[in-house]
């Protein structure tokens, strides 16, 4: 990881006696995509709002590009484009006027790329926003976020109200942002979309960061499930003894992290009746902290 673009240090926010965010320590490098996962009330939006300088931290600091998000919020926000979760736009404006207005406030009026991006997102940016559906409005808002050339994009539940096609398009846009060297921090309830694009995932529970998952490590892992017809193995693909409980009632359950050919070679020597090999996903990890929700 290079020099961090975003650093939070013991970032804490209290609303009266209620602690909404408790000592968040997080770093994001340029070009990294990080997801914030957690149910409602877990502190995701509070964390994002602190980064935007909407609120003063009770304790700790957040810095973007070396600038404190509260005391030097303007410099910090020069480096950020933000999509709020509760989307409210100036309804009397057209999409184009909104993009231009926000660009002018940023001191960086958008160029012709707005039109090509609008075509990609399939929106008519010359219609007043009041005439657009909520999904279309969200696309316009995405346009305002994807247009500025900033090092960090922050999105609060960005796929809300998007249809599956547009959700895929958004995720692709985030991948492209990463390729351009932009970092992305986004919150979501949807594990699949987080898995699809994130380099790391932070899981929050009741305001605390309870787990930080490197997705590359997770993607290297596979869950193997098989029904055996003969003598069960005692050692795994890497030659180490299988963990207790891996074989029960003629079934093999194994979590494997290592080269795929080694696994396949090992499986070829087992008495298999059927077999399922799946990439590991976030669900078991998420469930560890949030039950079956």
């Amino acid at each position, binding site marked *: 990881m290079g020099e961090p673009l975003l650093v939070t240090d013991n970032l804490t926010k209290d609303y009266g006696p209620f602690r909404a965010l408790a000592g968040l320590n997080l770093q994001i490098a340029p070009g990294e995509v990080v997801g914030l996962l957690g149910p409602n009330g877990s502190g995701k939006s509070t964390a994002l709002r602190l980064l*935007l300088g909407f609120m003063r931290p009770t304790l700790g600091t957040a810095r973007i590009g070396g600038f404190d998000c509260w005391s030097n919020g303007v410099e910090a926000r020069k480096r950020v484009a933000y999509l709020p979760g509760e989307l409210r736009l100036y309804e009397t404006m057209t999409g184009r006027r909104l993009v231009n207005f926000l660009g002018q406030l940023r001191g960086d009026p958008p160029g012709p790329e707005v039109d090509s991006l609008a075509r990609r997102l399939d929106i008519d940016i010359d219609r007043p926003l009041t005439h657009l559906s909520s999904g279309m409005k969200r696309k316009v808002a995405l346009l305002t976020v994807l247009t500025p050339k900033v090092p960090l994009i922050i999105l609060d539940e960005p796929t809300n109200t998007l249809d599956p096609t547009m959700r895929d398009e958004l995720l692709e846009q985030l991948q492209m942002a990463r390729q351009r060297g932009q970092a992305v921090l986004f919150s979501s309830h949807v594990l699949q979309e987080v898995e699809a694009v994130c380099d790391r995932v932070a899981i929050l529970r009741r305001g605390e960061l309870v787990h930080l998952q490197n997705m590359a490590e997770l993607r290297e892992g596979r869950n193997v499930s098989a029904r055996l017809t003969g003598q069960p193995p005692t050692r795994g693909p890497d030659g180490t003894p299988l963990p207790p409980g891996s074989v029960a009632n003629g079934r093999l359950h194994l979590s494997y992290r290592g080269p795929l050919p080694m696994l396949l070679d090992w499986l070829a020597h087992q008495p298999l009746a059927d077999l399922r090999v799946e990439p590991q996903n976030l669900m078991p990890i998420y469930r560890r902290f949030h039950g079956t929700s």
Partner: protein
Amino acid sequence: MTATLVRKLLRDVRPALLVVCLVLFAFATLWVKIAQRVTSEIAPVFNSVALVFGDKNLFQDLIFKGPGRVSQAALGWGDLNFERPDDFLAMGILHPVVLILALVWSIGRAGGAIAGEIERGTMELLLSQPLPRNRLILAHFLVDLLVLPLICSAYFAGTQFGLYLVGDFVPDYTTLRNLKAPSGQAIALPIPDDPQPLPVNGLAEFWGLLNTVALMFAVSGMTLAISAVGRSRWRTVGYAVLIVVVMFVANTLGQLWEPAAFTRPVTLFFYYQPQKAMLQGNWLTDLGQAWPGAPAVPGVAVLVAVGILGYLSAWRTFVRRDLPAPL
């Protein structure tokens, strides 16, 4: 950045601004016609009849008795003379239509400036840009500086247009001349043979309207200060209206009831005396009326100072406060 915000805010208020300006323009034009009719047609009749009874103020005293005196105090018409066109034009600036429009504009716009923007959720959109919060306050200040004089200019233009339409204020005694006793004989009343046009100085209204601009600015600043702590436009508007109504009642009561007079200087309306600036060129408000021994102070300056204090308070609050999630 500030210019972009100002342009956007001006675009937002454009429809309402147009309506308010048109209403004030039309009202001012109509008020000139009313002024002409009262001062050059009705007042001469009353005066002539009153002179027969030897009491020139007979009708004015009759009108401003009982409830009339309350409305006279409430509207600040106490020192004004219905027979003089300039006095009558000054009453227009103090008229409830003008006052209410001016106050509704100031409270409505400033109430929505911060609390309304938070309530609508668009504040997040603005402040997620690299926009210093004080720029938003500055933009609203600049909009007030542009729009409040414009609103009052519409009234001024309406008066000038009205004066152009109605021409000279020549006392008209036709009704009196045609009056006949039941016997059919003409009634002998003191009617001048060659009535001269009454003096009218419509341009003096400019100075009165400066006072109106100052009042609007004061109310706007005060409301913005409330707006900067709130998150609901209508709650902000409610508080501001309550404060203004209490001030208005206190000022009126203080004029009618001596023991309550001490409250008047803490109301904005005590310093709103456009008629004095317009008719006498007097910009001073005598605090001694309410607080014995206190000096006279320039009323417009007090109103402007209240407005500036409101803006400073809004600025101080807004740059420090947490921005809550939209309702």
